[in-house]
């Protein structure tokens, strides 16, 4: 029975390519929102409006957790996949 990881490793490179690009785009969007949250929280805290600081922190943690668990879907590196696929052929080249 193939697992998710095996299936992903056997996927066509075009598919893995699209997946990794989508992952990076989502992570970049998350980081952009977090920068905005930090900037807003800091400016409001310095202007004595500290009520926004905790919601901004919780939102930032939430976005980080999304990004962290998102990494599970990161396809294995090309090198690792290559080694696995060619493991039986390496001896024949010598």
């Amino acid at each position, binding site marked *: 029975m193939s697992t998710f990881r095996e299936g992903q490793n056997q996927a066509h490179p075009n598919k893995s390519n699209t997946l990794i690009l989508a992952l990076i785009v989502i992570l970049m969007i998350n980081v952009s929102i977090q920068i905005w949250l930090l900037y807003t929280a800091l400016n409001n805290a310095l202007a004595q409006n500290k009520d926004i600081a*905790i919601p901004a922190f919780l939102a*930032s943690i939430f976005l980080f957790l999304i990004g962290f668990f998102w990494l599970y879907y990161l396809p294995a590196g090309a090198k690792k996949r290559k080694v696995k696929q060619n493991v039986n052929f390496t001896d024949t080249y010598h």
Partner: protein
Amino acid sequence: MATDNKDNHWKEDFPIEQLEARQVTRRDFAKFLCLVSGGLATGSGYVAAKAHLFPGEEVQGEHFVCKLDELPVGGTKSFVIPGSMIPYVLIHVEDGELRAYEQKCTHLSCAVFYKPGTGKIECPCHNGWFDAYTGEVLAGPPPRALPRLDVVLKGDGIFVTAYDGTSEQVQS
């Protein structure tokens, strides 16, 4: 030629190909983005903790700055409240009103100056402008108004207290 095996031993200790060392893979880039994300979340936590657990202290009591006749109309006087390092500026605006603000721009903490005759406070570093009557930002990069102190006139003496937002305007 010094190309014997002896010279290549370092490769066994550092078995990383040149291409691998130079190029950042997309996997590594994604992981780095996640690390940055964690850093930003930590920063937000620091801001929240500092705002709620260690709020900045307000100015306590009244503090004498100078006598009214020492401050001509359109003139300013820089001062520091005893026990604090924050620089303030007292402004005698042309229509006779007195105002006191922190003399640090809210953008990058440059010293701000009153421009006589304009009713505006200028930050010369990045061309930021504040209203001399309210401290609000008029133009430029500053993200928020200048922190303000209340001015109290007692006889001939000018005193400052913490700003409570409800005080009447002080006229000289």
